[in-house]
């Protein structure tokens, strides 16, 4: 591999990190509250709003069942509205966020549903408001699961980000296709794959480490 490819790879890695980081952040800002609401709003639950729960559940399912590459193309007008352009790394963040938010919402919903109902009852018996229960009981208790869920989301977004080359999103996936496939430079393809493997590995390990720091459920997680 010629030396002038190193900056190209570095550049592409930064673009991928930029897209993934920002879409994770935005996806969590949207998907987090949505997930909490989905986990607490069925009939008889804390924020009981069964009708809204069903509607939001449907929207989330619809968004999640649309293949990502179709989503990217389908929302081009919306992307242009938000980002001012439909082409480029920043523009790619729009579809990535829209794919991430419902995914993260479901992951957070699952984590919160894992919290023992007895804890909600105990908090109600203390005179907690529904919002206090969410802030002081549900989220802290679900934190290890939430972190692992977000880790999964980041790993998936690294994969998705490789597809946004289709709309000029650049990044590692795009580099791999353009150099490795279209210009017959298999060594670039290989380098891209290796970088992606390393990224995913780092994210996964970091996520698990952070989750274990939050997990006080069993003494084994305290490294004794």
């Amino acid at each position: 591999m010629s030396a002038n490819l190193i900056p190209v790879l570095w550049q592409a890695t930064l673009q991928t990190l930029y897209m993934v980081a920002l879409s994770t952040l935005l996806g969590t800002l949207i998907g987090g509250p949505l997930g909490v609401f989905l986990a607490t709003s069925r009939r008889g639950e804390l924020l009981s709003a069964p009708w809204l729960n069903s509607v939001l559940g449907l929207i989330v399912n619809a968004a999640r069942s649309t293949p990502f590459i179709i989503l990217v193309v389908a929302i081009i007008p919306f992307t242009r509205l938000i980002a001012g352009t439909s082409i480029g790394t920043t523009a790619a963040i729009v579809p990535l966020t829209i794919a991430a938010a419902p995914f993260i919402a479901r992951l957070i919903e699952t984590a919160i549903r894992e919290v023992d109902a007895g804890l909600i009852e105990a908090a109600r018996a203390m005179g907690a408001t529904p919002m206090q229960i969410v802030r002081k009981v549900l989220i802290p208790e679900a934190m290890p699961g939430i972190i692992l869920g977000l880790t999964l989301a980041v790993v998936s977004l690294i994969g998705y980000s490789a597809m946004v080359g289709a709309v000029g999103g650049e990044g590692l996936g795009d580099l791999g296709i353009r150099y490795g496939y279209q210009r017959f430079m298999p060594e670039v393809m290989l380098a891209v794959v290796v970088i992606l493997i390393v990224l995913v590995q780092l994210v996964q390990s970091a996520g698990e480490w952070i989750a274990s720091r939050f997990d006080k459920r069993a003494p084994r997680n305290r490294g004794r």
Partner: protein
Amino acid sequence: MTEQAISFQGVTRRYPQKGGGDVVALHEIRLDVPQGAITGIIGRSGAGKSTLLRMVNGLERPSSGKVMVNGRDVGAASDASLRRIRREVGMIFQHFNLLASRTVAENIALPLEIAGEDRARIGPRVVELVERVGLTAQAGRYPAELSGGQKQRVGIARALATGPRVLLSDEATSALDPDTTRQVLALLQDINRDLGLTILLITHEMAVVRDICSHVAVIEAGRIVEAGETYAVFSKPAHPTTRSFLTGVTGVAVPQFIADRMRDAPQDSQAQAVVQVTFVGSHATDPMLARLTAERRVTVNILAGAIEEIGDKPFGSLIVALPAARLDESRRFLQEHGLLTEVLGHVG
């Protein structure tokens, strides 16, 4: 007049079922829980005791009737005033319900945070509570590192944090071994004495009632079948459910090999009647069976028996066999001397 901390006034709870028809969990419950006492509600699982307890802090609401706590109607309270009432009513649970993500001290601080207490005042209050339940050394530990008994102590400290006047206990010792159960019960008794706290507990274990409850209510299929001072209720049990719990507390039961052979009526002139004799108060120490033999020449065969204390008073229960032909005469003799008898069956 003793003041009532909690008063159930004709409380009924129905659960509507899909496809019509209601399940009635509680039926016209009338029960007064005296201020400053430890009152036990005993019943089998599904009897409705858990639903009844949860009415006190509004986790359940009555379908009809009123639940008065410290003079306020819980069932009719708005959300905001219900939250205020809940801060005056602590609750402990069978499975402790501690937050795994919080240390002992942080768990105890939770109700104070919820009540909007000043950070500066939470610290000292938590120190005091941790000491009260004897967990000063464990204050920085997480629940996963504690034994069951220690977890329940945290539960108790947490329930006391906001300075409640009433403590509800939902089978608080049912998940604990007998030794730990005794320690936790002793702690509840201390708290009751020191703080003058009214304690209402539900249990299916007669031993819990025997050890710490001054008052008891027996619940069966959503109805209170007997209630009053523990000793009075258990010295003259009127309802079969009460009697069966009593057998549980003394641990006295008809030995299996006899139970297998027992029939309702005597089969021949040699038949033996199996009788449960309950001794109460001072009679518990009188040798009445010996006198039955000496004075009436009735041969009494003791099959099982025990003497316990309920509310600091001796309480005994024996299961004996005596000739069926002499049954009526013997029962009269024993009853004249203040003993309770119940014919369980006949052998032979």
